[in-house]
């Protein structure tokens, strides 16, 4: 089981037990996502926020929150066995106590951390290519005059020029835009040998994205009759939150607004990258463009009657 999935499973078990101990009804849906899992996602986080709200409600009613104390070691075992743990608290004050299962090889001190997202300028380039249906185009730009990137990469790559690094799917492109001095190592080396990128994507993939979009278009009258390409541009920040949604190429005012609104409510798995020699990944804020070919290939359940024109 991948580390992220295992973490997800244990955190889910903790949430279930918190709910059970505090008599909170919590319906935990099985995650069907097959891609890389970071251990949590907006759906998992939403469950935590729900539990917090329910506990607050109970506390306002005079009920104290109950935390019986769960042993991660027991939960790890349960996760490995695929069963529900009957966790109990540990009396030991020892930081690692006896529950470390692998005592032979560990990372050096403070290894394997997720680096804090660097403060960086917003990208300003849009990459376009002919697309069919709904295909995401991801891109991002790095300004290599940024001290941060110089610092991070200087041991292998010395930069003194300025340029934009773009990601389109898994392909990385570099555009030199000036600056003094010269690039001591090529950007191709950097992209192919030093850095691994992962683009942001909708949880569940494009099929689920279409379904989420279809839900958002339920109130658009005659949506199935609208044909053509729409382009929507948006940011996915390092928490997977969608922002700054713009309809670059619209089809219909009502449809454009509905699509914009639907995207604003979505949560995506954020993009990230890592230096290949390092163990941690840097979250990456990305600007994305989607081309959506209408009518989309998902049934849209219309609700209610068509709108009636308002008379003056």
């Amino acid at each position, binding site marked *: 089981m991948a580390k992220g999935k295992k*973490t997800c499973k*244990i*955190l889910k078990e*903790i*949430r279930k*037990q*918190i709910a059970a101990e505090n008599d909170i009804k919590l319906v935990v849906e099985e995650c069907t996502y097959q891609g890389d899992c970071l*251990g*949590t996602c907006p759906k998992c*986080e939403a469950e*935590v926020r729900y*539990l*917090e709200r329910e*506990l607050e409600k109970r506390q306002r009613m005079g009920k104290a*929150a109950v*935390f019986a*104390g*769960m*042993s*991660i*070691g027991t939960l*790890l075992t349960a996760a490995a066995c695929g069963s529900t743990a009957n966790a109990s*608290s*540990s009396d*030991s*004050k*020892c*930081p*690692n*106590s006896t*529950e*470390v*299962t692998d*005592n*032979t*090889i*560990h*990372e*050096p*001190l*403070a*290894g*394997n*951390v*997720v*680096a*804090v997202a*660097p*403060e960086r300028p917003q990208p300003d380039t849009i990459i376009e290519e002919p697309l069919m249906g709904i295909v995401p185009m991801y891109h991002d730009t790095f300004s290599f005059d940024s*001290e*941060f990137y110089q*610092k*991070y990469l200087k*041991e292998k790559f010395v930069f003194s020029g300025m340029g934009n690094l773009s990601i389109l799917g898994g392909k990385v492109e570099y555009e030199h835009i000036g600056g003094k001095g010269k690039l001591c190592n090529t950007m191709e080396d950097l992209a192919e040998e030093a850095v691994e990128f992962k683009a942001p994507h909708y949880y569940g993939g494009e099929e689920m994205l279409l379904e989420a979009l279809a839900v958002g278009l339920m109130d658009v009258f005659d949506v199935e009759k609208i044909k053509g390409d729409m382009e929507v541009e948006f940011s996915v920040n390092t928490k997977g939150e969608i922002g700054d949604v713009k309809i670059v190429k619209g089809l219909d005012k009502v449809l454009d607004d509905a699509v914009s609104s639907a995207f604003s409510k979505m949560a995506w798995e954020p993009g990230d990258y890592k230096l290949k*020699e*390092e*163990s*941690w990944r840097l979250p990456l804020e990305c600007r994305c463009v989607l081309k959506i070919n209408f009518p989309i290939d998902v049934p849209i359940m219309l609700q209610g009657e068509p709108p009636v024109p308002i008379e003056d």
Partner: protein
Amino acid sequence: MTSALVFGIGRHRLTTDGEGVTTLVTFNGCPLRCKYCLNKISWDIVKGRHYTPEMLYEEVKIDQLYFLATHGGITFGGGEPLLQVDFIKEFRVLCGPQWQILAETSLNVPLKNVEALDAVLDGYIIDVKDMDPEIYKAYTGNDNALVLSNLEWILSHGDPNRIMVRVPHIPDFNTDEDVARSMERLKTMGVVNFDEFTYIIR
């Protein structure tokens, strides 16, 4: 206003550096220059992201429910967290007594730092490298006199169970016999919890 440079925040760590669900917060700044350091960015005391204790608390409290349910909390690492005395003390005031706060430390800091934080911390994860001064110096570029005196002070001022001492096998720097000698000496000092492991060289 107290602030510190933080280069990493790792959420949802399970038994890696604490009893329950922990968030590892890594500070810039380290007195050592370990040959196999994975986070050399921590040596830089200029680059990074400035956090006040309030900013950090706002960011990490997202996992409070997990901390409370599992006896987890924050593990400060780095870099060297015991160089951030005021920051950690102020953070403790913000998060309250229920979160477990641990320090992953080399203990190669002035005693006054240890004294100031001892009551704030719930436990220590101490990487002593090797107890032999020459091996220690060859690997870290520094001597280990402060490590030993600080460790003695901690052991004489509280429950030894709040300490986990990491004793690494360091390829090309120490031998299995060196590690065994280090552990014997640590046991004599009163250490009861050990984490013996091998450094992975990347």
